[in-house]
């Protein structure tokens, strides 16, 4: 598939966290959390709303500081947020799409910023069925199409680690399949994926793709009052 040529130069390294704890607004979101992802591996974060999946993804991305534990990339502690950020792509519930720019211009901006290849833009659009929308201003896109545009960013410049927060939201079946294919291709070339999803259907879909290799012991670590204060 289209991701292939850009994914070949992925360096296959491992990513892990030990004893992670995070406190937001004075309340404990999670504590004693361990995870480890090997090259080609995937991690599905499951849990009810507010269980801290998004917070954990933001911790993994280096956006949110954790209060205890440590993150390691290929057994080396993650210290510099910028060099860690360069190794990952994070698709959040916000699409980061500029309504005034066309679909191509939106992708071209991120491609330039991440030093990707111009040629990968067309391939990324094809992968998420955006080619016929290429010259449309993004303000005309539906929620699902905007989300596909956000997902297409994964393919414009290779990065070893993908962090996906509820990537199935607003997607139709064909787009879910496209996402599943992109994830499979990424993993086949040694990339790592972390997916947060409370949606059983998408996770089942993930199982057939062999996404759910590992379920972190998130929920089991919490008492009820900790859960009530946990930020989504």
């Amino acid at each position, binding site marked *: 598939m289209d991701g292939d040529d850009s994914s070949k130069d992925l360096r296959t390294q491992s990513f892990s966290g030990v004893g992670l704890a995070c406190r937001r607004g004075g309340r404990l979101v999670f504590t004693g959390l361990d995870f480890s992802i090997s090259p080609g591996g995937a991690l599905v974060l499951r849990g009810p709303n507010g269980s801290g999946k998004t917070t954990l993804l933001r911790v993994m*991305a280096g*956006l949110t500081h954790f209060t205890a534990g440590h993150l390691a990339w290929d057994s080396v502690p993650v210290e510099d947020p910028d060099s860690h*950020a360069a190794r990952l792509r*994070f698709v959040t519930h916000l699409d980061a799409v*500029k309504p*005034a*720019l066309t679909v191509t*211009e939106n992708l071209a901006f991120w491609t*330039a*910023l991440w030093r990707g290849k111009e040629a990968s833009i067309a391939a990324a659009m094809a992968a998420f069925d955006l080619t016929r929308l290429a010259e449309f201003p993004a303000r005309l896109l539906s929620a699902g199409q905007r989300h596909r545009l956000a997902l297409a960013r994964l393919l414009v410049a290779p990065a070893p680690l993908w962090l996906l927060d509820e990537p199935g939201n607003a997607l139709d079946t064909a787009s879910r399949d496209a996402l599943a294919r992109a994830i499979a291709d990424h993993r086949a070339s040694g990339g790592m994926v972390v997916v947060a999803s409370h949606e059983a259907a998408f996770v089942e879909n993930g199982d057939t793709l062999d996404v759910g290799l590992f379920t972190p012991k998130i929920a089991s670590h919490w008492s009820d009052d900790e859960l009530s204060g946990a930020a989504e």
Partner: protein
Amino acid sequence: MSVFTSILARDLRLAIRQSADSLTVVAFFAIATVLFPFGVGPEANVLARIAGGVVWVTALLAALLSLDRLFTVDFEDGTLDQLVLSGEPLSFIVLGKVVAHWLTTGVPLIIMSPILAVTLHLPAEGYLPLMLALLLGTPTVSLVGAVGAALVLGTRRGGVLLSLLVLPLYIPVLIFGTAAVEAALTGVSATPMLSVLGGFAVLALTLCPWATAAALRQAVE
């Protein structure tokens, strides 16, 4: 440096597509300035005395109006998260955004200023110092304003808070900006005042992008 140019190009393109935002700022500048002859009265000598100060104060307020939106849109649509995660130095990204802001609001204000100075009966020898002072002072306005805009991200009523935070910091620029015009009108050289404004701009250029980047990291935490 490619980061800087990518951000600058994107923000300029967005500003051109959404040119109403920049035009609002210029229109505010024009209307606020034109109110003064009505309020103070039409005597040419009174207006000439206050012309430099009026243009400067309204320019600062107009700039403030646009600074409110400098990071808010990127913050709300998730772009800021992605920019922080770009792996590139965030202060370069900030600099790109600030330069784009200056080109789309500071420069139009400078171009408008002589036209508005006419309505305030500014004597002919004041025009060049006024434009030069704005040229050297508005970059500082954008740079310092960016720090404030980053600090108030995510707060309710951020715009009001931004004014309280940033307007006091504009006082030195205002003093030397109006002094440059004053000097020219009294036949003294405006160069020392302009040099001080240039010095402010250099100081702001070295410190503000870095401080803004730190505030943005805090905002996306």
